């Protein structure tokens, strides 16, 4: 079922947790709410669940205004970060609880519980108590408790954050499969951009209670709407260069920094001119910094010499931290592109993938 937030705000005392948050989630969509801690993503989820009352605004589930309904009348299921399994109940009773609260006939409860348990591969654990389960098993029970009710939407609050790295990757895949099987709308809260990028059909990025950008992962990555999104998405993070804009003639604009100079032409220059800027922020993703010899003879937006400070080899690629104007800039290089710690090398940045941002407010120029 579809979900809609309409200008939802939430204030805790003087702290604004969520500010005029508007978001449409389509039926069956996997929507990820992403942001640093305290950005309001969990608050949004809790408001949808009915666990918090919004200070202003309205929430709709399948077109119905549920703003004033208690959680139990919203027919959503929530997976909590710490799973919140009832510790005194067996796995079976944990799964059955929501159904029993809805006064379903015993036979139907039993059938649904066994169905959900087999879907998640926890059929053998039904008699155990949560205390006798491993972290991964508890996680499955928490998921099972959500899917057993066939709710209108799943709300998941960082459900993987308590698992170890390997299990997290594995469970991530299973969640994707589960969503494919069930086709239920999912709102998934996380601060982990890898989870967001891999699982979300769309990602909603929040900061300080304000929605920054909504879009498919590729779009958010390729065209971040502002400096916050640009910096938050991508690892290693994008590097930023702020400098004054100078007309270099022949339709070319130059942005001069102490040790390197960017040259903007065509589209890049048009964007800066249209915004009528005297200063601009240029963002460069690590994979768009190349060794000068690899870059070749094509015209570059910038070439520069930098001191290689740290080289981290990941096996399939190399992250080289370069010292430039007294700060660190990360370049993501192919393994063949050998660079040595301590050496000074020339690098080049291509013009196609520069990200240009407004120096005030940080909006992407477009």
């Amino acid at each position, binding site marked *: 079922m579809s979900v809609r937030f309409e200008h939802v705000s939430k204030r805790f005392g003087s702290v604004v947790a969520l500010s005029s948050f508007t978001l449409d989630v389509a039926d069956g969509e996997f929507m990820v709410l992403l942001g640093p801690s305290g950005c309001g993503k969990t608050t949004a989820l809790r408001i949808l669940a009915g666990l918090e009352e919004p200070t202003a605004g309205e929430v709709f589930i399948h077109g119905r205004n549920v703003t004033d309904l208690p959680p*139990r009348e919203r027919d959503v*299921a929530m997976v909590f970060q*710490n799973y919140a399994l*009832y*510790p*005194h109940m067996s796995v079976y009773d944990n799964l059955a*609880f929501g159904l029993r609260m809805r006064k379903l006939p015993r036979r139907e409860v039993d059938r649904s519980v066994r169905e959900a348990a087999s879907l998640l591969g926890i059929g053998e654990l039904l008699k155990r108590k949560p205390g006798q389960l491993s972290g991964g098993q508890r996680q499955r029970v928490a998921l099972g*408790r959500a899917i057993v*009710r066939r709710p209108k939407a799943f709300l998941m609050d960082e459900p993987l954050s308590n698992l170890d790295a390997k299990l997290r990757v594995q469970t991530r895949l299973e969640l994707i499969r589960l969503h494919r099987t069930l086709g239920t709308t999912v709102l998934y809260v996380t601060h982990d951009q890898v989870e967001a990028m891999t699982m979300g059909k769309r990602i909603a990025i929040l900061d300080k209670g304000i929605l920054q950008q909504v879009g498919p992962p590729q779009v958010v990555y390729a065209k971040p709407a502002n400096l916050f999104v640009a910096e938050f998405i991508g690892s290693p993070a994008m590097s930023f260069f702020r400098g004054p804009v100078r007309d270099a003639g022949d339709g070319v604009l130059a942005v001069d920094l102490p040790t390197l100079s960017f040259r903007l032409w065509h589209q890049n220059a048009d964007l800066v001119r249209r915004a009528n800027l005297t200063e601009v922020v240029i963002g460069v993703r690590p994979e768009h910094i190349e060794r000068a010899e690899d870059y070749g003879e094509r015209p570059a937006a910038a070439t520069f010499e930098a001191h290689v400070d740290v080289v981290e080899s990941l096996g399939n690629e190399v992250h080289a931290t370069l010292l430039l104007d007294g700060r660190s800039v990360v370049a993501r290089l192919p393994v063949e592109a050998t660079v040595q710690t301590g050496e000074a090398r020339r690098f080049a940045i291509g013009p196609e993938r520069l990200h240009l941002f407004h120096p005030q407010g940080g909006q992407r120029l477009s």
Partner: protein
Amino acid sequence: MSAPTAVRRHTASWRLARFAKQAAAAAPFLLPSLALFSVFVFYPLVRSIWLGFHGTDPFGRREVWVGIEQYQDVLTSPDFRYSLLVTGQFALYTVVPATIIGLYLALLAHQRLPGIVIFRTIFSSTVASSVAVSSVMWLLLLNPGVGVLNYLLDKGGLPTASWLTDPDWALPAVAMTTVWMNVGFATIVILAGLQNIPEDLYESARVDGAGPWNQFLHVTLPGLSPTLLFVSVVGVIFAFQSFGQIHILTRGGPLDSTTVIVYSIYREAFLHYNLGLASAQAVVLFAIVLLLTITQFVIAQRWVFYR
């Protein structure tokens, strides 16, 4: 024959040496409390058991070995059985209401509201008043002539009673004052228990469709079960050890209707100067309380859930 196993077995003397070493290290930490316990608990306990095997003269001095005679007397005496019954009733009248009222007050005081600390303090304040002071206060409140209770009952058109002098009402009246005294303790302990129940269990239950009653039944009560066991065990022990309020309010009367075991022990020891018999009673009381506590724990294993 197979070759001797490579596993080295520790010899008995090696184990003894290790134990001695550990004990020597532990001793300085244990000694202070051991000394206190020895003086105030262990020695009196052993002494009581020993006294129970000895008859005493009316001045509580002559100690003659009488074997298990006095223990037999205690166990077969109708007086003792009667006071055991009174004590049992007293425990029932005090533990059940104090636990329920304490639970109710704790639930009220657990709400997150401005100024709730004031109510928490009021609800748990009786823990800070001594048995003697509370008893004297209730002696006045229950006074048939000038007491507030009868005054209010009369105003409300309800029958009044001579609370502490009527054999039918004396035990419930003393129990009521004891409930009042114990409610503060129960409230504090249950409040602490409530604070240990994770908030997300309630939230999960709400999303699962549970209303307030089902949340109480399926989250609060199971989460409180160890606390409630503790409160009831301690309550029973308190009840079996009650003396002060009975001594002040009724002196075991009227017609022995409030003669609980400890009061009977007191009477035997300090009015009849029969230390031997009193000690025998005390030892039997100890055994009964121990047995009751074990029983409570065994029964509770079924429904108490420790996280």
